[in-house]
């Protein structure tokens, strides 16, 4: 079995367990042909969408992925500050962006992406109780996690941060950035090591960090053991 086939099998097996509906928006760039038909204008978008359709097609109809063109939705793009394609957005029922992906969920990133879909859909989230107990101590925060496809520690950090965001009732937003695909962002933050986690553009956590460290960085002080 090829590596791609193996990954498809994993997606198929895991997505079949999704029991709650969820909608994701994916922004690409589309141009209009002379005959009026639409054609994707961004180089990676076709492959990106094909990958996401594998998730959708194996979800028993629970996952719906809507592809939108950034060109045809300028107001939406402005509202969510969309400047890059392809971008995946997890938007909650109050219209708040919870998770943003500037990365293709493939290879090692499959598991945390599926996990994010599940917890965002409302399935059990291991960190939820503790995040909710500490919500009053957490300021509205954006956590950026810079990753690369070959980084073995990145999926763990992505999983934790996205689960924190899903449990935070809109207080935490996570942005997952593949810096091989977005090198300018890596350069902007002088990141030459991954995972590279930045909280509110202030605190930087380099390398593998666990959930307690990320929670501590969000709260900015001692965290008591709470059950």
């Amino acid at each position, binding site marked *: 079995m090829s590596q791609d086939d193996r990954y498809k099998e994993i997606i198929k097996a895991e997505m079949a367990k999704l029991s709650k509906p969820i909608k994701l928006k994916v922004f690409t760039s589309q141009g209009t042909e002379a005959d009026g038909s639409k054609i994707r204008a961004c180089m990676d978008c076709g492959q990106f969408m094909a990958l996401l359709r594998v998730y959708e097609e194996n979800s028993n109809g629970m996952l719906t992925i809507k592809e939108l063109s950034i060109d045809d939705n300028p107001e939406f793009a402005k509202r969510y500050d969309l400047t890059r394609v392809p971008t995946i957005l997890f938007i909650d029922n109050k219209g708040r962006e919870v998770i943003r992906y500037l990365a293709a969920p493939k290879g090692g990133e499959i598991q945390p992406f599926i*996990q994010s879909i599940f917890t965002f859909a409302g399935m*059990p989230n291991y960190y939820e109780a503790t995040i909710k107990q500490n919500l009053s101590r957490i300021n509205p925060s954006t956590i950026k996690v810079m990753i690369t496809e070959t980084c073995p520690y990145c999926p763990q950090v992505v999983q934790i941060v996205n689960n924190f965001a899903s449990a935070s009732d809109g207080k935490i937003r996570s942005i997952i950035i593949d810096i091989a695909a977005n090198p300018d962002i890596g350069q902007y933050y002088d990141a030459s090591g991954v995972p590279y986690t930045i909280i509110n553009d202030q605190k930087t956590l*380099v390398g*593998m960090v666990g959930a307690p460290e990320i929670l501590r960085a969000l709260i900015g002080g001692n965290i008591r053991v709470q059950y």
Partner: protein
Amino acid sequence: MFNIDLENVDLEKTFDLIVLGGGPTAIGCAIYAARFAMDVLVVGKTFGGLITTTHLVENYPAITSISGQGLMEMFRDHMNSLNIPYISDEIRSIDNLGDHFELNSFFQKFKAKSIVIATGSERKKLRIPGEDDFAGRGVSYCATCDGPFYKDKVVAVIGGSDSAAKEALFLAQSVKKVYIIYRGKEIRAEPINKQRVYSNEKIEIIYSTNIKEIKGDNSVKSVIFDNGEEFVLDGVFIEIGSIPNSDLVKPVGVRMNDKGEIIINRKSETNIPGIFAAGDVADSPFKQAITGVSEGVIAAYSAFDYVKEINIEY
């Protein structure tokens, strides 16, 4: 692997066995425990452990050559096939309550009749000026993670072990030049890797040298040798060995050697009944994935025996 399976797992119950760790030792142990029909949970900070940073594993029997990540994906598939729950968390303390243990994390209190400590080890730091300041900006402990940032650049690997040699060989595939900077007179790599290093034109070894400072501006620009020489480069990969992750069990009275490794016997038992240890965190002299798995499997069997005994006592 992740808490997708939490719908079917009651985290409040008392598990027969909780395995701490996420590397091959821990997963090997959990696979055997599940086959012994034990109620087992794995709690690890990092799935895969340190071996995932290894570019190529070529000494795991029956698998000629595979990346560390690839090997651990196979472990994960095997673990998933047995529906073994894995939680990504870090246990902060253990209470020994006689007939069971309580394991506390920031997120959950777990209960178990037995524990296997397979928390492995973490990379040693040089503890020199600049090391922390440039972490993620030119200082790295993982070539697999960060190697791609140094395409056509000059880097150094600090250390002379087999791991250091393998890091250098991996980096040599993409960088312009790799210097191995080692305090000793001859690198200690396995003969096969030593030969690969010697024959790689991109790799040069600087012997009998320590670095005492890492310098730069936004990113690393040079290192200072102990003879005072400033050596210009773009990245420093530190590979000077590891220290066991054993602090967690010190307060419970688990006996350790002077390196902080947990002392175990041939049954992977520690001096505390019900607590077992295996792999890099234990005091075995030869630390390999295969030996860790072996100790983990023995620990699973010993825990199975132990739980069977205490269940009879109930």
